[in-house]
């Protein structure tokens, strides 16, 4: 398919734990088109996180091919993979993974510092714009431990999109958040997707998956179902109906 951003063929991942071989992925063929919003679902141990890590170039498959934006990732060395993670991928983790004792703004600047195309002059401005787009411009100088879980995750999202990636990957982005913040985060993803950014999230909650356009279910390292969502839920509308419990909620 010509407009596929992500395309995998027979992706296999085997973890070796001593003598034991764990087959995390047993041959995944998947294509994700540009501007798609995909939720990858499955129970823990189904291989969805492993798949996500490989797609995010954080891990390498044991066998199989993976093309990202037309590039054969399997042929890349470690440095080129780092370049890919920097330029083409924005990754959002379940546990946020922000640098501690580092302000929100500096956390967002981090990917720009590893991007040689960005001048140090433009660095701060781009980071500020990214923070603005997740609605945290006024908290740019707060440290992670001064931010609520939802705010931390929004900083992580700003960091993911600051280098204008072709795809944003989020591994259980709402796993550590309460219901209302989860919806807030999903609203941001929907908003980004509306601007044309491809978003792939991993979740085990059908509620969260309902905000996306396409649900892919994994089981035991294989794709079980791949369904289009007819009428995705609108996070921004629902947000108005959920009462605000407290302003400064933390986990």
């Amino acid at each position, binding site marked *: 398919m010509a407009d596929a951003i992500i395309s995998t063929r027979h992706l296999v991942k085997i973890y070796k734990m001593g003598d034991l071989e764990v087959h995390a992925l047993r041959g995944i063929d998947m294509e994700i088109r540009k501007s798609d919003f995909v939720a990858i679902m499955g129970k823990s141990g189904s291989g969805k996180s492993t798949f996500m*890590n490989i797609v995010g170039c*954080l*891990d390498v498959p044991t066998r199989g091919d993976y093309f990202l934006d037309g590039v054969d990732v399997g042929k890349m060395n470690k440095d080129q993979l780092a370049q890919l993670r920097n330029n083409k991928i924005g990754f959002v*983790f379940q546990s946020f993974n922000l640098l501690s004792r*580092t302000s929100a703004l500096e956390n967002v600047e981090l990917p720009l*510092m*590893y991007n040689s195309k960005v001048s140090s002059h433009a660095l701060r401005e781009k980071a500020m714009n990214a923070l603005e787009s997740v609605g945290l411009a006024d908290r740019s100088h707060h440290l992670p431990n001064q931010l609520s879980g939802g705010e931390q995750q929004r900083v992580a999202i700003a*960091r993911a999109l600051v280098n204008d990636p072709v795809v944003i990957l989020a591994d259980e982005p709402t796993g550590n958040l309460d219901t209302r913040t989860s919806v807030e985060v999903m609203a941001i993803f929907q908003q980004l997707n509306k601007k044309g950014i491809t978003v792939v999230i991993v979740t085990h909650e059908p509620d969260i998956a309902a905000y996306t356009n396409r649900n892919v279910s994994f089981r035991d390292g294989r794709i079980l179902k791949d369904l289009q969502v007819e009428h995705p839920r609108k996070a921004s509308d629902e947000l108005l109906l959920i009462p605000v419990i407290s302003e400064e909620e933390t986990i």
Partner: protein
Amino acid sequence: MKLKNQLKAAIRSLSKNKMRTFLTMLGIIIGVASVIAMLAIGQGSKESIQAQISNLGTNLLTIFPSASMTGGVRMEAGSSVRLTLDDYKAVADRCPAVMYSTPTVRTSGQLIAGSQNWRTSVWGVYPDYFDIRNLTIQSGTIFTVAEDRSASKVCVIGQTVAKYLFGEGVDPVGKQIRINKIPFLVTGLITAKGQNAFGQDQDDIVIAPFTTVQERMLTITYINSIMVSATTEKMIPEATDEITQVLKERHRLGPSEDPDFTIRSQADIANAATATSGILTILLASIASISLLVGGIGIMNIMLVSVTERTREIGIRMGVGARGRDVLLQFLIEALMISLIGGIIGVGLGILTSEVIAGIMKWPVTITLQSIILSFLFSTAIWIFFGWYPARKAASLNPIDALRYE
């Protein structure tokens, strides 16, 4: 990653974690400071012991004429062959292993000052004699070369002489004495040296210019002996060879003939000095290596813990696009900054500690440049190795493994 960003990242990371930065820096500071202080004390002791030994005149050589033999009976030394001032000049000019040298003439004299008198030996020497014998002047001055040339009637006296002629605690400088009825001006008082190894009082002496004693008092043309000091203790054999060669040549003796002079050195003292110096060097080296080892282990522990703790940070950085070498470079820059700042503080603290020890314990300390460089380089090397090695291990992981690291 650009170097500018790299520097920025390193500075940020150091200033964000002030406690960690301080603790790691403390390792370097203590390592460097302890090595410098230990070595300063050791080196100071070594030098003070060596100075005391060389005070005994370890590199001193005395050249006497040999005793002649007439009909199987050995005569008094110097009875037939005599050393001359030209012999002295040849030794002084043509022996590079000789540092200081002087001809000597000696007589005994009756000293009179006011109503007091005292009998002692009077030496006629060049000013070099004071350097050869490690004599220092407590008050006044040594006579000069010019005073020697003009055979001036000046002299320097020892403490014992001063005590008997002028009484205890009186400064004799500027006073007149008569030696064998010739009036002399006292220009200096020699610092007390006490008894030598053979129980002789080294302060019972009058030293006057060579020419004055030779021409005015003795009216002789020969000299009693030549005294020289070798440049170092190790150069004594070489100096002996050079002097033997020069004097044999002057006395027209073939290489196989016995010399008509004797060179006497303080071989036992010199051997003791060499042995002591060797022991002290070993002692110093072991002190230095133990301090470096202890300092090194401290640095190592802090670094291993700190980098292990930072594996997750390395994972985050790689996750957003840092290459392995970006991470390593950042660690290297951080390591260099910490070692540099910590090293400088350590050097300062080390010098301060040494000075405090010197002040409070009255212990001689000598800070050498080598000890500073040694401790600095060693601590930096340990720092970089134990900071760099785990960082390299973390950077070679898949990012996801570094992120999952607990």
